[in-house]
C-alpha cells in the first residue's frame, strides 16, 4: 500500500513537471516562430511584408526538443557518473543544453534572413539580442522539468531505460504535444489577428501577417505574451495529462488482473477522451452554426 501511495505521489509530481514543461515549450517555440507558423514568417517578406519577427527555424519542434532534452539528460547522466549530486547535475546539464539551443536559434535566424536578401528583409540584430535570451530562458524551464521528470521515472518508478534514452523519448513526445496544441493558436490567432475570428485564414491572405502592434512594431516578445495566455497553458495541460495518465494507469492498476488492469484503464481513458472530443465538436457545430445553408443532396 505504501508503495502505491509513493507511486501516486511521484506520478502527480511528474505530471506537474510535465505541465510546466509543455507550457514553457509552446511559449518558447512561439516566441521563436518555430514549427509550422514559421512558414508564414518565412513567406511574408516574399510577399512584400517586411517584419521584425524572430525566425528560428531549427527543425520541427519534436526533433528539436528531442535533441534539447536528450542532450540535457545525457549531460546530466555524465555529471551524475562523475559523482555530482543529481539535482546539480540536472541543472548543469539543462544549462549546457540551453547553450546549444541558443546557438542553434541564432544561426537559424541569421541563415534564413540572410537568404531572404532578395526581398529586402534586413537582419535586425537587436532581435537576436533581446529574444534569443528569452527563448533560452523558456527552453531552460522546459528542459529542466522534462529531465527532472525522466530522472523521477527511473529512480523512483524503476523504468528500465537509461536517462538519455528516456530524455529522447519524452523530448520528442513533448515537442509533438506542444506543437500540435499550440501551433494553431499562434499561427491563426496571432499571426493573422486581422483576419475574421472563427474562420480559417483564406489562402489568398497568406503572408500578410500582422507586423504592427498596438503601439509601434510587433516583435516576437509580444507574440510570447499573447500565446502564454492560452496556447502555452493548453499545451502544458496536454503534455501533463499524457504523462500523468501514462504513469497513473501503470502505477496504480498494473497489480490488477495480472497486469491487464493498466491496459484496460488505458482503453477506458481513451474512450473518455473520445466522448469529451465528440462533445466539443458537436457543441462547436451547434454554437457556431452552419455558415451557409446545407446544399441539397450534397452527399
Amino acid at each position, binding site marked *: 500500500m505504501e508503495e502505491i501511495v509513493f507511486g501516486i505521489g511521484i506520478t502527480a509530481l511528474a505530471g506537474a513537471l510535465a505541465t510546466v514543461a509543455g507550457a514553457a515549450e509552446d511559449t518558447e517555440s512561439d516566441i521563436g516562430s518555430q*514549427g*509550422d*507558423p*514559421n*512558414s508564414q514568417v*518565412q513567406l511574408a517578406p516574399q510577399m512584400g511584408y517586411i517584419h521584425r519577427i524572430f525566425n528560428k527555424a531549427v*527543425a*520541427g*519542434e519534436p526533433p528539436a526538443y528531442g535533441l534539447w532534452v536528450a542532450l540535457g539528460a545525457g549531460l546530466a547522466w555524465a555529471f551524475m557518473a562523475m559523482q555530482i549530486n543529481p539535482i546539480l547535475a540536472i541543472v548543469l546539464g539543462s544549462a549546457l543544453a540551453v547553450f546549444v539551443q541558443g546557438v542553434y536559434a541564432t544561426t537559424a535566424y541569421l541563415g534564413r534572413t540572410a537568404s531572404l536578401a532578395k526581398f529586402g528583409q534586413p537582419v535586425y540584430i537587436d532581435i537576436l539580442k533581446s529574444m534569443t535570451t528569452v527563448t533560452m530562458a523558456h527552453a531552460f524551464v522546459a528542459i529542466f522539468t522534462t529531465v527532472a521528470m525522466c530522472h523521477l521515472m527511473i529512480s523512483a518508478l524503476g*523504468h*528500465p531505460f537509461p536517462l538519455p*534514452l528516456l530524455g529522447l*523519448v*519524452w523530448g*520528442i*513526445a513533448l515537442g*509533438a*504535444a506542444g*506543437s*500540435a*496544441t499550440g*501551433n*494553431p493558436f*499562434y*499561427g*491563426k490567432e496571432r499571426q493573422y489577428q486581422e483576419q475574421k475570428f472563427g*474562420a*480559417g*485564414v*483564406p*489562402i*489568398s491572405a*497568406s503572408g500578410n501577417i500582422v507586423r504592427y502592434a498596438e503601439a509601434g512594431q510587433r516583435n516576437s516578445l509580444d507574440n510570447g505574451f499573447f500565446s502564454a495566455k492560452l*496556447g502555452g497553458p*493548453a499545451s502544458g*495541460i*496536454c503534455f501533463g495529462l499524457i504523462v500523468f*495518465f*501514462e504513469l497513473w*494507469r501503470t502505477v496504480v492498476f*498494473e497489480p490488477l488482473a495480472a*497486469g491487464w488492469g*493498466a491496459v484496460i484503464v*488505458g482503453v477506458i*481513458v481513451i474512450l473518455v*477522451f*473520445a466522448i469529451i*472530443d*465528440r462533445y*466539443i*465538436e458537436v457543441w*462547436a*457545430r451547434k454554437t*457556431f452554426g*452552419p*455558415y451557409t*445553408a*446545407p*446544399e441539397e443532396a450534397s*452527399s
Partner: protein
Amino acid sequence: MSALGGPKQTGGIQPPTGMGLVLSIVLIIVALALAFLLVQMAGVIALVGIIIGGVLIGFGVHFVPVGGAPAAMGQAPGIATGVAMLAAGAGLAGLFGGAWAAPLGLPLALAGGAVGGGLLMAITCTMVNVIYVFGMGIPAASGKVAKDPITGDTFPEYKSQGTEGHGLPFISWVGGVIGGALGGLGGTLIYLELLDIYQAQLPVLLNATVEQIAPVAVSLAGIFAVGMFLMNAVLAAYNITGTIEGPHDPKFKRFPRAVIAAAAASAVAGIFAIALLELVGVF
C-alpha cells in the same frame, strides 16, 4: 515542421515498379535466410517480429491526421505539425509503456505499448480540438469528404471561405488514436524482439549475468527501435507527401506502397541489428 517544400503533383496513385517489388521480396527472403543461418529459429522469429513491427509503423503513420503548416492557419484540417515526428512522438510514448511492461510478458507489453501510443494521440487530438473550438472559434470541417463516415456530420456548410476545411473531425480523431496505437505496437515489438536476442547473447559473449548486461541490452534495443521507427515513419511520410487527413483521405489508399517499403527496409536494417553481436571478437 518548419519545412518548406512543395508536395509533388501526382495524378492518381502510381503502383510500385516491378523491379521495386521483386527487389523487396528478394531482400526480405535473403534477410530471413541470413537470420536463420546466424541465429537459427530465434533469429527468424525475431526478424519476422521486426518486419511486422516496421509494417505496423508504416501503416499506422497513414492514420495520423496531419495538416502541416496550412493547419496552423486554419487552412486545412488536421494537426499542425510534421507527420513523421507526430507519429514518432506517439510511437515512442508507446515504446515507453511497452518497455516498462516488458517483464510481464510479450502480449501485455505489446498491449501496453499500443495503449500508450493511443493515449498520447487521444489526449493530443482532444486538446487540438479544444484550441480550435475555444481558442479560435473554428468548427471541424473536412476538406476531402462531404460527410464524416462515423458520425454522419456534413461538412461543406461549416467550411470557411477560401480554405480547404479546418479543425479535426471525429474521423480524424479516431484515425489519430489508431495510428498512435499501431505505432506504439510496432515500436514495442521491434524493441522486445531485439531485447530478447541481446539478452540471450550478451551474457555468453561477455561472460556476465543478465542483470549486469541489462543496461547495454536495453540501450541497444532501444536505440535501434528508435532508429528503425524513424526510418519507417519517414518512408511513410514520403509516401503521403507530407499531409493527410486520416483514414478517409484519398491519399490513405496509397498505404500498400509504404507497407512494402517498410517491410523491406525493416528486414535489411533488422538483419544487421540481429547479427550485431556475431562479429564481436572475430577481428
